[in-house]
């Protein structure tokens, strides 16, 4: 017997009798003999829970977590503190073990938290409508680009090279499938080169995509970029943002963004070696019916009570098949609940306080690391949470030395930006203490 298979031998026998078959094998006699496996799978035999736990705990023990190492790594995934309530609420199995809320009458829990999530994303980004989420920040950029291509019927997308290199790779993979041309704009001193951008935005441009704060942590001049993007009629302005930064920075909506996307991992989602995370997406009301993914709307039930339901489904694959706005069928479900709880818990003052403290801590780290002159700022621009420094030393050597001191060093920029060969990008979240930052800078000092 297996713990997850309740039927006994006796049950099997009685069920086979009811069907009118002699054996379990008879259930599979429609599988052609020539392709049947006819042997056991070459896997281990079944194990007890104790044995499985021992084996996997051992594997997990071969990893060094951010609780053992002090994390200054960012570059798209961040070691923020995850409040205790999140784990407890998202583990409730009424949420965790439910499917996509097709049956609204017994899915009001899921539907309502998605509605709350959509509301929070709109409030944060300053946009009119948000969907129920996409896979991650990278695919959200690709989906936004597709949306702009569909909306404008143009097939050229301009993206700044200060957007996360990984996300740009995803965009290129997606774009190739539909023959969309991607034009990348170089950076100038760590920000999008506005002159280059101007030259490349034409009446063929479906969208201009930038990230803010950008991959180097620098705050882009979104107002200037918006003006360039919208100098062409119809061209859509897409920004990818760090949701935590919106605790202090102007919302993209207030600057005139048409589509806002981003990686929601900082909103209470554990690092988990890169996923599952959360791609959020919001837009203006005018583009509502072009949004990919699930959307929840408010309505009433038969008795006139407030109720929630999946809506605008004419955009979706299960209704429109090949005419859908996207093939996406899932959303990030339980992670949207985590983000909802996180934003609710931090709330009006907390998110701001958090963003302020991150700004202060990252600036303190920046000053400490660069003050002796051994490490030079790579750029001289305002930043949030992340900053880049450079030196004569190979980043691999630096990070190895830091690791010996149980510090996870920054992200080496050289492999994505050859011209910043020795650049290292450090991330400083609210979790980093003065003591940890001082240790980082003193170990760094000792290397040169």
């Amino acid at each position, binding site marked *: 017997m297996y713990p997850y*298979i309740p039927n006994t031998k006796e*049950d*099997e026998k009685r*069920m086979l009798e009811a069907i009118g078959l002699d054996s379990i094998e008879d259930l*599979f006699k*429609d599988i052609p003999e020539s*392709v049947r*496996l006819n042997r056991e*799978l070459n*896997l*281990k035999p*079944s194990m007890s829970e104790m044995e*499985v736990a021992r084996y996997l*705990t051992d594997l997990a023990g*071969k990893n*060094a*977590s951010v609780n053992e190492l002090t994390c200054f*790594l960012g570059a*798209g995934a961040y070691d923020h503190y995850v409040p205790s309530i999140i784990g407890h609420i998202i583990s409730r*199995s009424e*949420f*965790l*073990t439910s499917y996509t809320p097709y*049956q609204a*009458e017994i*899915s*009001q*829990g899921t539907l309502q938290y998605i509605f*709350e999530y*959509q509301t929070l994303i709109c409030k944060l980004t300053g946009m009119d409508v948000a969907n129920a989420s996409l*896979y*991650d920040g990278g695919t959200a950029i690709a989906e936004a680009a597709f949306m702009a291509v569909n909306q404008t019927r143009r097939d050229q997308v301009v993206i700044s090279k200060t957007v*996360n290199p*990984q*996300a740009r*790779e*995803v965009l290129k993979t997606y774009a190739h*499938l*539909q023959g969309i041309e991607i034009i990348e704009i170089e950076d100038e001193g760590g920000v999008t080169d506005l002159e280059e951008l101007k030259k490349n935005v034409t009446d063929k441009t479906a969208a201009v995509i930038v990230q803010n704060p950008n991959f180097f942590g620098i705050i882009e001049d979104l107002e200037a970029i918006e003006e360039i993007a919208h100098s062409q009629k119809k061209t859509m302005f897409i920004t990818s943002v760090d949701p935590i930064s919106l605790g202090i920075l102007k919302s993209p909506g207030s600057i005139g963004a048409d589509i806002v996307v981003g990686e929601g991992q900082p909103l209470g989602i*554990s690092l*988990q070696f890169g*996923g*599952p995370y959360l791609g959020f997406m919001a837009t203006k009301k005018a583009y509502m019916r072009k949004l990919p993914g699930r959307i929840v*709307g408010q*309505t*009433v039930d038969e008795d006139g*009570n407030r109720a929630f339901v999946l809506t*605008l*489904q004419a955009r979706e*694959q299960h209704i429109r098949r*090949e005419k859908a706005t*996207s*093939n*996406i069928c*899932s959303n990030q479900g339980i992670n949207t609940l985590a983000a909802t709880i996180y934003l*609710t*818990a931090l*709330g009006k003052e*907390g998110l701001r306080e958090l963003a302020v403290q991150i700004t202060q801590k990252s600036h303190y780290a920046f000053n400490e690391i660069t003050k002796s002159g051994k490490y030079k700022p790579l750029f001289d621009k305002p930043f949030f949470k992340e900053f880049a420094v450079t030196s004569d030393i190979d980043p691999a050597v630096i990070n190895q030395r830091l690791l010996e001191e149980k510090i996870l060093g920054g992200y080496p920029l050289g492999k994505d930006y050859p011209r910043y060969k020795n650049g290292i990008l450090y991330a400083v979240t609210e979790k980093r*203490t003065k003591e940890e930052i001082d240790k980082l800078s003193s170990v760094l000092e000792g290397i040169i």
Partner: protein
Amino acid sequence: MRKYNELIFELSKAGRKAYKLPEADVETLPVEELIPDKYLNKDELDLTEVSEVDIVRHYTNLSNKNFGVDTGFYPLGSCTMKYNPKINENMTGLDGFKNIHPHQPEETVQGALRLMYELDQALCEISGMDKMTLQPAAGAHGELTGLALIKAYHEHRGDTKRTKIIVPDSAHGTNPASAVMAGFDTIEIKSTEEGLVDIESLKAALSDEVAGLMLTNPNTLGLFEREIVEIAKLVHDCGGLVYYDGANANAILGKVRPGDMGFDVVHFNLHKTFSTPHGGGGPGSGPVGVKKKLIDFLPTPTVEKDGDRYYLNYNIPHSVGRMKDFYGHFGVLVRAYTYILTMGRDGLNKVSDIAVLNANYLASRLKDYYNLPEEDTIYKHEFVLAGLKGELSEVTTLDVAKRLLDYGYHPPTVYFPLIVREAIMVEPTETESRETLDEFADALIKIAEEAKENPDMLREAPHNTPVRRVNETQAARNPILKYEG
């Protein structure tokens, strides 16, 4: 319990807090001195002010308005709503899995990479393929990845006229949507009366413009495509590739492998077959497996082994590129591997035995009351009923589904597949007992009687759910997509 109908925003009260940050231990310069004014938002944030107790009570109350697999029977066709083992959650919550950064040096994440490598190998063995990518985030994303691979394969051979993907009319909606997203045109082929691929329609659709065929086997009617060898051969002979939609793989574990049936590309839904929770819509995970000829096109990075060392391989000669950020839904991969270890080769085989037994047993109990199109067929893991038996035009499948809510069940998938009138698609899975199946069958039989005796009561169902039947038309006509209060 009291009826609960608040939104979190309606609980907000000035001055309440649900957080406390540590005092800043560094110099606390005002943010205006660190970031230029023109970038700063001067307005207050429009977010809630609630206490931690408010939040916990609110979401606990919301959870009480939800139905999960842990609540009860959830026979949603093609969704494989099996029990989600609790040990999976504990394992994915281990510090060494939960709290590792994706950019950490490889020597500090050897356990994670090894887990991915071993999962890759296990899925290859189960599918009969040669190499997997664990990157795809969901089934539909797996489809997109697989189609990107098919495209890259043809492009690499300079065969650029292959712009069409064949999809049977019984296919999941994601299949044609993924094909279009991948830049293909779709050709829909008809099914036979029985619901299988019509070989003649397939032949007529084949040409040197066909890049491939997408097929679910067993298909969405729960029928095994007996002519699969012939089907794969026909597509291969005309230069196309064959894609396996693994949504229904729960029926065939250890019985037959897509790789042996002639499929070139396969995706699995770890959230279906391999027991990871659906999470109210996600996150899922849709690893894709390929035959040798497609390995050089896989997305970067893959996980490889060199001696005792595991590493991420970015050096794939003709890679389609990256399909998503980082390496896939690692937290879901841990759960799925936990399940594979728990069940083992014997247990996985048993999963399909009982999943199929349960489906056929349930079908046999219902066929006198609901239309079972192929009464003498052996179904695989699911079967599709064509509504109630008899002339009951006033009671629809939707009414039956809504009435099931009153009996405490999640209804089956309804109105899909599209080729069956008034479809009720039932997938019980192996994690349900005979008693549960009997009780469910009794409920459906009772509803069939109610349909004759009291059709109005059915049309007004559900009667005892947290909300009554919701007005979808109003939601779509007058979209309210956020709280404006």
